[in-house]
């Protein structure tokens, strides 16, 4: 595996045929490989997310992150864009599904693609990653502490977030879930429910829970960062994608 890679800002075709900004990172060379769609967290399409995109290229995948806030705040600083979108109620599930489908199609269209595409999301993106797994033709889903995959948001929440509990039977591919036991949303009970429902539906999944970690334990630029959990989580992600995005039947 080479650590030589390239990264750039590109435009992909997202939901409703919209042209959407995205960040692409690719390993050097044309060896056939899988692709990864990275879904950014609620704070937006920021530097930390782009670092994760580059890490997937370093791991050997073509990786792309669509800027989910591009329509509402084109060219804005990530924090200003996130504030704008939050004040407007967030983005719709429909937009998310269309943007991930566009990103997956972009990855499969690259000459290096082996046809396999995974999706991963953090925080709000964790829920959106599962949502993509219900609706988009992807091969592996990683949910990093996504809130409201299970459990019910407050009725008075102005944000467009609904539970996915009733739809988990529609999951189209294997799921890896990574959670902190000190998180409140999702709480360990929420994760219990996720595990139970996936089992009841006969889905392929693995869930790992970390003591001493709460929400956002992968975030190296925040106090929530927990190196032990994050390091193990990256190893789990590498193994999971190695199994399901390798181009061979798992």
């Amino acid at each position, binding site marked *: 595996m080479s650590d030589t890679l390239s990264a750039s800002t590109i435009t992909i075709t997202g939901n409703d045929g919209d042209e959407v900004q995205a960040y692409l990172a690719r390993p050097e060379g044309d060896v056939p490989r899988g692709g990864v769609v990275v879904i950014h967290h609620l704070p937006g399409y920021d530097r930390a997310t782009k670092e994760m995109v580059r890490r997937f290229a370093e791991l050997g995948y073509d990786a792309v992150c669509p800027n989910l806030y591009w329509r509402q705040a084109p060219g804005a*600083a990530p924090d200003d864009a996130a*504030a704008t979108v*939050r004040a407007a109620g967030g983005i719709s599930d429909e937009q998310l599904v269309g943007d991930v489908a566009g990103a997956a199609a972009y990855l499969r269209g690259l000459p290096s693609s082996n046809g396999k595409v995974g999706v991963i999301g953090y925080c709000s993106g964790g829920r959106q990653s599962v949502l993509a797994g219900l609706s988009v033709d992807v091969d592996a889903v990683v949910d990093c502490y996504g*809130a409201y995959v299970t459990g019910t948001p407050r009725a008075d929440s102005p944000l467009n977030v609904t539970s996915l509990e009733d739809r988990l039977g529609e999951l189209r591919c294997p799921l890896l879930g990574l959670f902190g036991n000190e998180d409140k*949303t999702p709480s360990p009970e929420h994760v219990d429910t996720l595990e139970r429902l996936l089992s009841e539906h006969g889905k392929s999944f693995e869930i790992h829970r970390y003591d001493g970690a709460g929400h956002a334990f992968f975030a190296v630029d925040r106090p929530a960062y927990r190196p032990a959990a994050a390091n193990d989580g990256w190893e789990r992600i590498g193994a999971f994608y190695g199994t399901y995005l390798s181009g061979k039947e798992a």
Partner: protein
Amino acid sequence: MCTYATARRAVDGSAKGPGGAWFHVTDATVYFDHPVHAMAEHTLNIDLADPSAGPGARVAVELTAESARGLLAAIQEALASAEAELAV
């Protein structure tokens, strides 16, 4: 946790924002969630903004819960100490 907790109000006033320029603010968004910059896992965040002028027309603060409560008390104290006829 990712709280999603958000409250919004229309406001009428001014703020000193990007580039040191004053601008009219029309919207306040208040939420308790992850900060962008403050070194705390969760903070009380306030955006004072003029959405009609674009995403950058915003003044943002991120306060620990304790300091946000202190600020709230200070605001109430200042308003209460004003002559009643002025504070309308």
